[in-house]
């Protein structure tokens, strides 16, 4: 799929979240719910970024710490929230998963002119889960391909 062709597709509403003072955009249609931090039950023999599971109104869903995933030090604040997303792992497999973020900002509507394709760093590493770059009020926000972020490995 070519970069040029995807830009218009990327336009739409995004929920922006903050990790270490950087803002990231998650497509609103992927988001199921935003909750404040819950008690997390740890699960043994999981990768470090999988913090465990939470009980969300009777449903048990896994929780991933995006800070750990993005190689930042794990840190909880008053503003820490869990964004519950709906992932499409395979063609017909849809799961819900909690993402721990520093804080949620707002829901923004991105027009195609606000979106830039993801930069080419001359290497394939580290850019698979970035859909593109959004320019909002003079800031650059990375649009995350949330499906890939979680199942990249």
């Amino acid at each position, binding site marked *: 799929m070519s970069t040029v062709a995807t830009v218009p597709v990327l336009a739409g*509403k995004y*929920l922006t979240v903050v990790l270490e003072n950087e803002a990231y955009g998650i497509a*609103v*249609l992927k*988001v*199921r*719910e*935003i*909750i*404040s931090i819950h008690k997390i039950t740890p699960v043994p023999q999981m990768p470090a970024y999988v913090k465990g599971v939470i009980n969300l109104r009777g449903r048990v869903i896994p929780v991933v710490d995006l800070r750990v995933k993005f190689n930042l030090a794990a840190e909880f604040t*008053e*503003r820490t*929230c869990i964004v519950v997303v709906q992932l499409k792992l395979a063609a017909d497999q849809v799961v819900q998963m909690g993402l721990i973020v520093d804080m*949620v900002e*707002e*829901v923004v509507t991105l027009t195609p002119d606000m979106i830039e394709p993801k930069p080419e760093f001359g290497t394939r590493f580290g850019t698979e889960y970035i859909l593109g770059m959004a320019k909002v009020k003079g800031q650059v926000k990375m649009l995350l391909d949330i499906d890939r972020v979680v199942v990249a490995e």
Partner: protein
Amino acid sequence: MLHHQKLGTKLIGSFIIVAALTLILGSLAIFNMLRVKHTSTDLAVEIVPEVAVANEIERWSLKTMYEMRGYAFTEEAPFLDKARANLGKVKENLKVATDHAEKYQLDALRTNTKRATEKATAYEHLIEETVSIIAGMDKDKASMNAAAAAFMKSGKDFIESQDQKLLADLSLLVGEKITEDKIKERVKKTVIANEIVDLGNAVRIAAWKSIAEREPKGVEAAAKKFPEIEAKLAELKPITHLEADLKDLAEVGSAADAYRGALERFLANWKTSEELSKKRTATATEVLAAAEDTAKNGMKNTAAAAAGAADALASASNVLVVGCIVCVVLGLSLGIVITRSITKPIKSVADALSAGADQTAAAARQVSSSSQSLAEGSSEQAASLEETSASLEEISGMTKRNAESATQAKDLAGQTRTAADAGAADMEEMKRAMDAIKGSSDDISKIIKTIDEIAFQTNILALNAAVEAARAGEAGMGFAVVAEEVRNLAQRSAQSAKETAGKIEDSVRKSEHGVQICGKVAQSLSEIVGKARQVDTLVAEIAEASREQTQGIEQVNTAVTQMDKVTQSNAAGAEESAAAAEELSAQSVVLQESVSELLALVDGARSGSAMGVVHAAPAKAVVVKGVRPAAGNLMRPAVPVRGAAPVRGQEALSFADSPAKLVTHGHSAGGADHFEN
């Protein structure tokens, strides 16, 4: 060790050592002499009398033997008497010997004397036996002679009768009235009778010869002739017919028998006498042997005693010689050591004394100059004392003012302290108020936090609503607007809460600062209170000190008065010092002379130089000159020094030579003039 003793101890110790050595030596000599004396006494009292008595016994024993032998040979009574007398002497001497042995417990002498005494007694018995035997022998001889006379007479009678008969027969023969055989028979009878008589004579001759020769065998040989006589008599008997003749023959026979018996008895007695003689000799020999033993023993003891005495004398003389040498050597070495140990310290003492005398002279000069400066100092001191007295009056006034000021200061300090205490109490209240403000601020903070929390939740809810609205697409557009508004409200609420929280925090911080300042003020106030108390105490002390000072100044006044007196007596002391310095100089001269004498005594005349006698004289003049005017300056009318000065001066003069005396008098007089002026 010798160095640490007293001189007297050293001398007495050495003499005691020498005396002890002499005593030991003398004791040894006396001991040896006593031993020799004892030996000599033994010799004189025991051994010599022992030998002497042994010799006496031997001599008298020999004499006794000699006399007895004479008696045995001659059978004469004087020999016997002498022998008995000699034996008595022997016994006397034996008794003496026994007593001597008992007296000195001489075992050898006792044994020998006992033996000799026994033998002497035995010898006495033997003498008695010998006397009786010899008497028996005399009796035998007498009976022998009687028997021989009877024999001869009967024989002769028989022969004479036969001769008469023969003559008668011969006359008959002429008449042939008788036969020739008868005559022959008659002749035969005569012959036989003559033979018998001859035999008897032969026997007697043999017996006497034997006695004369003292040979018993002759008697034995003679005795063998008796059977021959008997045979002849038997031959004669048958042919004899006449009664008278037969009677003669029988008498001859009985006489011959009697002789024979006497002869045999004599022989027996003789043999006994011979044996007795041998026994006597043996007994006497034993007595002699005992005496000789004693004498030999005595001589041996004498020789031993003499040798012992000689040895003892030799060893005594050796000991004396060695002891004399030891005593002389020891005495000399002790003398040398002690003389050295005495003279060395004395010499060093004399040297030290000499140096001391020099130093004393120098010191005397220093004392005189010191006395001078002391006198000057005393006058200055008197002037200073006047000033001091005036100053003290001023000080007294100032001190009183000080005391008053101190009392006022004390009151002020008390007021200060009260004020500071009140301030401290107010500060406490203020602090409590601040703490209350701080507590209220904390409560407000909590409320604002809750508001913030609610805003946060509202924001999340708004976002969820926005998400839901987005998912609803066109249908949710209106809802999205509402959600946006809600979110905006939430954010404003959060913003206001944040600002309020900031204000409150600022207020809290400021009130904390106020509390801190309040604490500092309280501390300062308490310090002020403390200082005010200290000031109070100090001011009280100052007031007390001022009072004491006033007293002290009074005391100082008294002291100054005393010092005035002391200054005067100092002046007098300076006088005395001057005089004493003079005395000191003179005595140092005397000391130096004494040291010279001592050195002369120790070293002989060789170091008897007049050392250091020179130094003293100049000092005197300086001393007297220096002190007198200075003392005069200080003198006040009632001071005793004026009177004392000349007296001291004169005392000093007794040691000084005449020029110095003149000088002293001059200055004394000058001093007195000065006072009166």
